[in-house]
């Protein structure tokens, strides 16, 4: 497979084909889809009804269902562009970035802890999550988005958010207790190489770590050439999140505080110094000789590789005062306590810590050499390689210029420019295919993160190319592309089954209907909170820790449950501990954060049912949902049923459903009354005086079953 392979061809935009049923065509997407269907003698499905469509596009663009008012407004809007207005409203909603940011975080293997055994928290990792949400909400052009994540520090050194964007590379799992820093560095570089290859290029570079790729034309050298762009990077966990002027102001304040507390702090330091020295020696002694040499060497004589080792080793010699102070004994401890109290008297003039973010930067302007490694082993170097692109796509050497005024190599700038170049055959194709995958449930190329031979061929390559070219021409305008996709007639089709079409195209690859999709775990949780009226729509900031189900092993690294209001924030704000995903989201296929994920699993399991059925948290949601129904519709059971239905599904119940629920109420009320002895019933959060508690508990049951139903968790 070679140069002729589709994914490496320049993107070629052919005009949309002529089709017989041109009346169906809303935009060029439809011409390509219809053409492919017509070739097989198939027809697209008719448009879905308005409520289905509104529910579909609302979940798709914002991860939340439409409110009853939004449904009513859409049904009442007879203007020809009623649907377009909805799409524009959803794309402009801040909820949009929270939904689409989540997709990107899957690709970025985003987590807020180190992984490995101890899984320590990475403070400030959440700023990258906020960056991603804001990037989608502000419709940042994709080429800019790519460049910022690869080399924001070099390209926009004065923009703190562009620095935080480099957190994309900073998301690697890391063995922070490792003693062999050479290996640790290599593993981080491997992770970055794999992730960059999969996310931006949909190439499974990982295979080429040890050998030329078996199926795709990725040479082992290509792997290390890509890696070489990152050879001089190191974590920067102290990126100031305020302007240089504010930093200066902070420094001035800090200087005053430092001056006034100089004596106190000197005394404190003197108490801690021997402890710290002992700890530092202990850590130093555990390092292999190469690392020890890098640490003790005269800085002027350190090689670039030794600088790398030095930067990695440094944190092993830095100890937090508070923790160290715990080891003080007797008089020293008393003295330290007294000094702490004295220091506290100055807290009113202490500006506190600067808000910081985490990212990656080059250590200096000289990168250590990168070698091809024998079977990927850090200590088995073969020939040296220079930074370079995928040979089959672009064999030329990159032009690398160290950025003026910065102590950085400029390597990543060269990579960023190549990735974000209109001529790169992969970047735009990969991204529009990802958008398509999320909108339609399956990509035009079926494996969004593997455009190689094993990933399968695109079903409609002309469409993919047309979209990619259009995307680049539009200035990599993400929302515009998404609008085109969701405005298409193809997207608006009904999901109803068609036996004839299914015979020809059983997997619906040609899109003769809209594929029904199960909501992702985050959507299920957010939607349940939303219809219950509990959802706290506060954006950004440190992540939250919802209550864990009973029996969950205590996550290493900690999990201190947040306040009730904070717990009810959207799922994207739930703390992502690498080794312990929030159980409900994990059950519903939230991906492992140890590697980039371009396509989630969709399992159906009993533990999922248990989560929605038996968890105390979901019962609390149901109580709130029932309380809301009581407030908005009660006390007439018929009105309650209707209100609950509209909140949960956007539609009114039919006769069968109403009867079913009425019968349920009558029977369940009795069952609850029979079983009520010694039991504290779960009641709606709002309960008018004099309400029959058994009836009220049955209402909670009903509301919870709506949130468990297939109609709730599937989008037609």
């Amino acid at each position, binding site marked *: 497979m070679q140069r002729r392979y589709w994914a490496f061809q320049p993107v070629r935009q052919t005009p949309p084909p002529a089709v017989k049923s041109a009346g169906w065509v809303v935009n060029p997407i439809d011409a390509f889809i219809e053409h492919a269907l017509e070739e097989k003698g198939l027809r697209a499905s008719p448009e879905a009804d308005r409520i289905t469509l509104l529910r579909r596009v609302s979940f798709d663009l914002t991860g939340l269902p439409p409110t009853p008012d939004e449904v009513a407004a859409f049904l009442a809007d007879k203007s020809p562009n009623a649907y377009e207005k909805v799409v524009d409203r959803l794309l402009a909603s801040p909820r949009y970035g929270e939904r689409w940011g989540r997709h990107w975080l899957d690709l970025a293997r985003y987590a807020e802890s180190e992984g490995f055994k101890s899984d320590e928290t990475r403070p400030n990792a959440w700023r990258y999550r906020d960056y991603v949400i804001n990037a989608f909400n502000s419709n940042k052009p994709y080429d800019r988005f790519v460049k910022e994540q690869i080399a924001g520090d070099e390209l926009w050194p004065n923009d703190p958010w562009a620095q935080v964007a480099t957190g994309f590379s900073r998301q690697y799992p890391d063995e922070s207790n490792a003693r062999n820093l050479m290996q640790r560095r290599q593993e981080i570089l491997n992770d970055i190489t794999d992730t960059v290859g999969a996310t931006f290029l949909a190439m499974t570079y990982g*295979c080429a770590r*040890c*050998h030329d790729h078996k199926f795709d034309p990725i040479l082992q050298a290509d792997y290390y050439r890509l890696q070489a762009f990152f050879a001089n990077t190191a974590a920067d966990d102290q990126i100031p999140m305020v302007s240089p002027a504010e930093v200066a102001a902070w420094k001035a304040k800090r200087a005053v505080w430092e001056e006034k507390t100089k004596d106190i702090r000197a005394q404190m330091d003197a108490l801690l110094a021997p402890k710290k020295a002992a700890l530092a020696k202990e850590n130093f002694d555990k390092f292999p000789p190469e690392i020890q040499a890098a640490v003790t060497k005269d800085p002027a004589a350190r090689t670039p590789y030794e600088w790398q080792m030095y930067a990695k080793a440094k944190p092993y010699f830095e100890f937090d005062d508070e923790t160290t102070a715990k080891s003080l004994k007797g008089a020293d401890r008393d003295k330290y306590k007294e000094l702490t109290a004295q220091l506290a008297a100055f807290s009113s003039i202490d500006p506190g810590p600067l808000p910081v973010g985490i990212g990656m930067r080059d250590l200096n302007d000289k990168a250590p050499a990168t070698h091809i490694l024998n*079977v990927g*082993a850090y200590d*088995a170097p073969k020939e040296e390689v220079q930074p370079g692109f995928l040979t089959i796509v672009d064999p030329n050497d990159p032009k690398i210029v160290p950025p003026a005024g910065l102590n950085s190599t400029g390597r990543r700038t060269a990579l960023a420019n190549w990735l974000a170049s209109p001529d790169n055959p992969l970047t735009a194709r990969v991204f529009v295919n990802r958008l398509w995958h999320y909108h339609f449930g399956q990509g035009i190329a079926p494996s969004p993160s593997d455009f190689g031979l094993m990933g399968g061929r695109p079903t409609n390559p002309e469409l993919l190319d047309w979209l990619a070219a259009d995307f680049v021409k539009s200035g990599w305008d993400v929302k515009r592309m998404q609008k085109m996709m969701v405005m298409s007639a193809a997207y608006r089709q009904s999901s109803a*089954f068609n*036996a004839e079409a*299914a015979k020809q195209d*059983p*997997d619906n690859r040609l899109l003769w209907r809209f*594929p*029904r*999709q*199960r909501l992702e775990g985050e959507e299920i949780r957010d939607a349940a909170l939303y219809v219950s009226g509990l959802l706290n729509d506060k954006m950004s900031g440190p992540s939250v820790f919802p209550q864990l*189900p*009973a*029996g*969950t*092993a205590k996550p290493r690294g900690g999990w201190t449950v947040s306040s009730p209001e904070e717990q009810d924030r959207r799922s994207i704000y739930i703390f992502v501990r690498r080794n312990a995903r929030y159980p409900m989201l994990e*059950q519903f*296929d939230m991906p*492992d954060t*140890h590697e980039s994920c371009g396509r989630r*699993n*969709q*399992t*159906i*399991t*009993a*533990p999922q*049912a*248990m*989560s929605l*059925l*038996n*968890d*105390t948290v979901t019962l609390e949601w149901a109580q709130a949902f029932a309380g809301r129904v009581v407030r908005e519709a009660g006390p007439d059971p018929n009105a309650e049923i209707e209100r609950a239905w509209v909140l949960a599904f956007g539609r009114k119940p039919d006769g*069968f*459903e109403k009867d*079913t*629920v009425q019968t*349920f109420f009558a*029977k*369940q009320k009795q*069952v*609850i009354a029979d*079983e009520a002895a010694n*039991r*504290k019933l*779960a009641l709606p959060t709002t309960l008018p005086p004099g309400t029959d508690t058994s009836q009220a*508990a049955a209402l909670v*049951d*009903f509301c*919870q*079953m709506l949130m468990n*139903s*297939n*109609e709730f968790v*599937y989008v037609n």
Partner: protein
Amino acid sequence: MSHKRLPYSRRDFLMNAGSGLGAIALSSMMAADGLVPRAAGATLPDPLAPKPPHFKPTAKSVIWCFMEGGPSHLDTFDPKPELVRLAGQPMPASFGHPITAMGTGNNTLMPSKRTFKQFGQSGIWVSDWYPEIAKHVDEMTVFQACWADGLNHVGSVCQMNTCSILAGRPALGSWVMYGLGSANENLPTFVVLTDAGEVIGGPKNWSSGFLPATYQGTLFRNTGAPILDLIPPDAIGNRQQRGRLDLLKTLNQHFDADKQDDSDLDARINSYELAYRMQAAGPEAVDLTKETEETKKLYGMDDEATARYGTNCLLARRLVERGVRFVELYCGSGSGWDAHTDIEGNHSKWCKVSDKPIAGLLTDLKARGLLDSTLVVWGGEFGRTPFNEKGDGRDHNPWGFTIWMAGGGVKPGQVLGKTDEIGLRGVEKRAHVTDIHATVLQAMGLDHKRVTYLHNGRSERPTVVTGEVIKEAFA
């Protein structure tokens, strides 16, 4: 991987389930009109209802101890004195040039550092890495010439589970569930337990593939409670819970009535029914507090090194005792056994992790009279190469490696098949993954050629298009 949206599967399901296995005549008849209409609220046949086997089974359950990452046969069950003689030399030209995952085919041969001894009446060789398991050789059939098609972990783990290196086919446990239904409707029929990281390739390894989604395996958690939220909060009474679920089922069936094509929707209904039944039976099944200290010790639960896998092995015994048909116990999940370097360090760790727990499992099953009806399988996705990798490791070897089975009707104390003098390839009585699967199905009373499912116009079977039962495996 995708096992959603299988437009034909519910129809296929009705055809396949409607008259037991291989209902080809019926299916072709019904295929003619495209789909089977279903009245609102009508109930489907229970996909987990017990079904008769094709013939008398020798095993009721399978416990598959999956040493993930590829354990070295050359350092455990397949001693090769010839490697000592050829140590440090390249492979003799007669062996050709195998293409390996890491391109190590020209590296020199590396003998095992282990000491092998013969054990039991049968005199089967086992290395000193497996002292406890060695005591059970007289219960085993050792397949020494297994082979597979994949070179890398993703494909090979997938094949060991599904017979295909490409994702999308049902796992063996799913076929067993489909073929036999459930023997205890209160527990999942196919359970997966891991002990470390995520299995390479994840849920596709216990996916139902093109079978209805109901047949997928259930993954237990590997820290804390094996199943969370097993019982409802105190506020919900048992009859109340049943009432809730009846409402849910009615509403779901009403919603699904015009979506005959989508087996996921049915699977979701079934998942709630299973959840409800597990509420009663599950806590007891996974409650290890009732086990004696002696039993826990037997499984190595008193030692930190063996506690995790020992717990899983004990859970497996409790599950098969209660009718669970297929339990998969990953050891070193996340490619733990993948010893490209330092095989001594790597394997001494994982052998220790698995030795006592698996031996304890065999002892315990036997003591309880369960070994006769429980087929225990040990193996990885492949073995390892006789030539070194990086001087002290071994590369992947799918051409010749060991799997053993014990209990469940297999003939005790025999070795079947043989690898060449250096343990590179199987040379006698080779057993492909599909043969192994056919044999496991045979033990469960299923003819692998007759467990079929119509998918996209093709009558699919567990072993794809190959696979023969290894008849000599049975007593």
